[in-house]
């Protein structure tokens, strides 16, 4: 490949991690990326939700939808601010901590980061102001257009960043010449083998997570006996959407695992803690639980389902192609954190199945008529499950990214550029200081976000906002009076 000395191992092998610039830079990137990721997830997913809600308002002119748009936008604004704040370090880190990598891949990867800024960020940023503050300054059509453009901007960001990352997984469209990636065909590089499925997987992940957050928050209000009819509406919209999204995501997730099998066999081996190669034609069992040991290169114990891997990958007990085991690679050429990858992968799958199951169960309730506006608030057990399911999507996304990026190791550009050769040569002490500062700062942000977010939730929707184009007196809440359950919170909590 690059004539890299084989003794240069993956950063985490270092005796002393705190004096290893590569390891520290990796930790810094992993920390900032995994925490940052939580917020754009909602901005992209809830952005689409807001488009639907505001569209429903424009179509029906039912004030409920208008107040939904205003209420969720308030959470959106909080979320967006933290998303931007935590996102800016990401762009600069490529240069500050991964200079050699940036220089080598700038021709393609750098351009794509530029596309993201110009296609996505600017669109989102410019129209967000109108979306949040412009209700009384522009007419409803322009406002709706702004909401749509904000959602498009957010999702274009998913498109470009996943394109860039997919290209790191399956570099295409050019070749390495004298340490630099020279692009021959841009469209081949953009449409690299991982791109379409990875973009879809991430798009669905943000949407599904957002839907369960919207559903969970709505369920919480109903459990609190606050604005039940109002939140039954958002709950049902979210639930209806998961009918499509949750099963589709499992299917796309399955396709994503298949593409890993095809293009990144060492990652698949780590995901399955598969040390020995399973030859073609032999029965392939699927490991349910195991305890991988990197040193002895085997699993200390394992519970496996016979033939299941064969069914998962090819729908038959024996595989026509071998599944390569980790031992096929030298230790320095394969992912090291097998246990982390193995359990992250399983966590993601379990959550995906749980969320789909919750959707299925809720659908049964709906079909049985138990989710009607009169009865929905009585389904307390179901609603509590929704509340507890709200954070699961985030965990699935972060564990998924751990599988994706830790499993790609020891490469930054798969099979082309090693992680150890990608980092800037900054004194480890400096990276340690910045890493610690990021850890403290992001922790503060996470706590403050949860604190202020829960305050917004406790305060609830504001039904005193003027509706654009409506001058007449209107009731305090727009649902039928018989269903209205008054807010029983003390006044000071609502202010």
């Amino acid at each position, binding site marked *: 490949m690059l004539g890299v000395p084989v003794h240069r191992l993956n950063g985490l092998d270092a005796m002393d991690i705190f004096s290893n610039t590569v390891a520290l830079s990796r930790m810094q990137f992993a920390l900032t990326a995994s925490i940052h990721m939580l917020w754009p997830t909602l901005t992209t997913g809830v952005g689409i939700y807001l488009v639907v809600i505001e569209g429903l308002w424009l179509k029906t002119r039912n004030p409920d939808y208008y107040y939904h748009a205003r209420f969720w936008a308030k959470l959106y604004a*909080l979320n967006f601010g933290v998303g931007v704040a935590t996102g*800016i370090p990401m762009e600069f880190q490529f*240069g500050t901590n991964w200079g050699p990598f940036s220089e080598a891949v700038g021709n393609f990867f750098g*351009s794509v980061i530029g596309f993201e800024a110009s296609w996505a960020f600017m669109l989102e940023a410019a129209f967000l102001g109108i979306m949040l503050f412009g209700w009384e300054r522009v007419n409803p059509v322009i406002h709706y257009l702004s909401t749509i453009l904000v959602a498009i901007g957010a999702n274009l960001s998913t498109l470009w960043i996943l394109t860039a990352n997919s290209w790191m997984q399956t570099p295409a469209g050019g070749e390495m010449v004298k340490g630099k990636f020279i692009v021959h065909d841009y469209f081949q590089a953009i449409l690299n083998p991982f791109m379409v499925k990875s973009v879809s997987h991430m798009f669905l992940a943000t949407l599904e997570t957002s839907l369960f957050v919207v559903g969970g928050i709505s369920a919480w209000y109903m459990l609190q006996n606050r604005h039940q009819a109002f939140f039954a509406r958002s709950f049902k919209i979210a639930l209806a959407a998961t009918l499509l999204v949750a099963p589709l995501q499992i299917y796309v997730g399955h396709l994503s695992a298949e593409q890993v099998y095809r293009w990144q066999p060492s990652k698949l081996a780590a995901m399955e803690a598969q040390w020995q190669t399973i030859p073609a034609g032999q029965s392939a069992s699927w490991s349910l639980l195991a305890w991988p040991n990197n040193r002895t290169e085997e699993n200390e114990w394992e519970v496996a389902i016979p033939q299941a891997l064969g069914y998962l990958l090819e729908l038959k007990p024996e595989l026509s192609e071998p599944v390569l085991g980790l031992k096929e690679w030298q230790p320095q050429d394969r992912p090291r954190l097998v246990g982390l990858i193995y359990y992250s992968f399983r966590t993601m799958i379990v959550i995906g199945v749980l969320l789909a199951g919750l959707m299925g169960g809720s659908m049964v309730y709906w079909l049985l008529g138990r989710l009607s506006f009169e009865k929905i608030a009585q389904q307390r057990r179901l609603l509590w499950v929704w509340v507890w399911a709200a954070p699961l999507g985030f965990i699935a996304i972060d564990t998924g990214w751990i599988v994706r990026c830790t499993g790609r190791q020891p490469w930054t550009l798969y099979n082309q550029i090693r992680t150890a050769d990608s980092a*800037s040569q900054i004194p480890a002490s400096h990276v340690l200081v910045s890493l610690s500062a990021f850890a403290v700062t992001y922790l503060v942000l996470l706590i403050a976000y949860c604190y202020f977010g829960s305050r917004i939730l406790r305060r609830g929707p504001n039904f005193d906002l003027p509706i654009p184009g409506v001058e007449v007196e209107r009731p305090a809440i727009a649902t039928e009076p018989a269903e209205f359950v008054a807010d029983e919170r003390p006044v000071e909590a609502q202010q």
Partner: protein
Amino acid sequence: METLEYFLPQVWFAILALFLFLYVLLDGFDLGVGILSLTSSTEERRSILMTSLSNIWDANETWLVLMGGGLFGAFPLAYATILSALYIPILLMVFGFIFRAVAFEFREQARRKWFWNIAFGIGSFTAALGQGFALGAVLRGIDVDLSGHFVGTQWDWLSWQSIVVALTLIQSYVLIGSTYLVWKTTGDLQLTHYRTAKIAAWTTLVGAILITLGTPIFYQSARSRLFQQPLVYIFGLIPILAILLISQLISSLDRRQERMPFIWTISLFVLTFIGLALVVFPYIIPTQITIYEAAADPSSLVIMLIFIGFLIPVMLFYNLYQYIVFRGKITGETGGYEG
């Protein structure tokens, strides 16, 4: 093809200069208002200051993100070398950004606002300081080997010259922030910022004189550039024009004009920026690596021109549009999305 290899990097140098200029101008007043918020006497005034930015701060900051992404794609070597050489100033800026960005929403929700007031003010100051040090270091030149890789130390950016540049940049942000507030506010608050604008105009002038005189004296490479024919006439003209503009600015502040101070300040920024761009060009990592050496593959530059270039007028248009939507004075606590 030969001419293309010169032409494309020049086009991208111009585009990135445009992005950087828009950033310095727009986030300049944004950060300036943030720094000025440290001097706000009341909570209400601070609210007005932050409201004057609430709809635009993010788009303003995005010009830098755009410039960073463009630099990464068009001049990968410069992006890698400059950012790793300036690790500390860049991170100062990044942490400043983080705290000031979250302050907008968190402060609005918080009952006790002091922490987020400090986060906003100090964050703005730190971001400007980091940028000033980075600018100072780039003007001084970054030590690289023949292939453009950084060979200096992690503290090279710190020198008394870079301190002067950083302080001057902060002053100029305060100046443009003050004149923005003069334009956007009324009453006592406006009067306060006529005063801060005037003070900042003088302090910026002092810094600018020091830098203008210091650059040819201390930097050999800049000296030869400055006295080159025919550039020497342009460089001779810039200080004269600058003095004229500053006197116009100060007299417009004295006459209590509302919009002209902001416009004169913008003109000053344009002039300074042209001067700096001419000093730096054709280098992208002063004083050794030119744009031609650091440029990405011509095919990349073409693709980026297609994918980003056509969006530049569109981005300018919709940014302008939202300034028009939110035109007018800010009075009291209006403009929040809660009404």
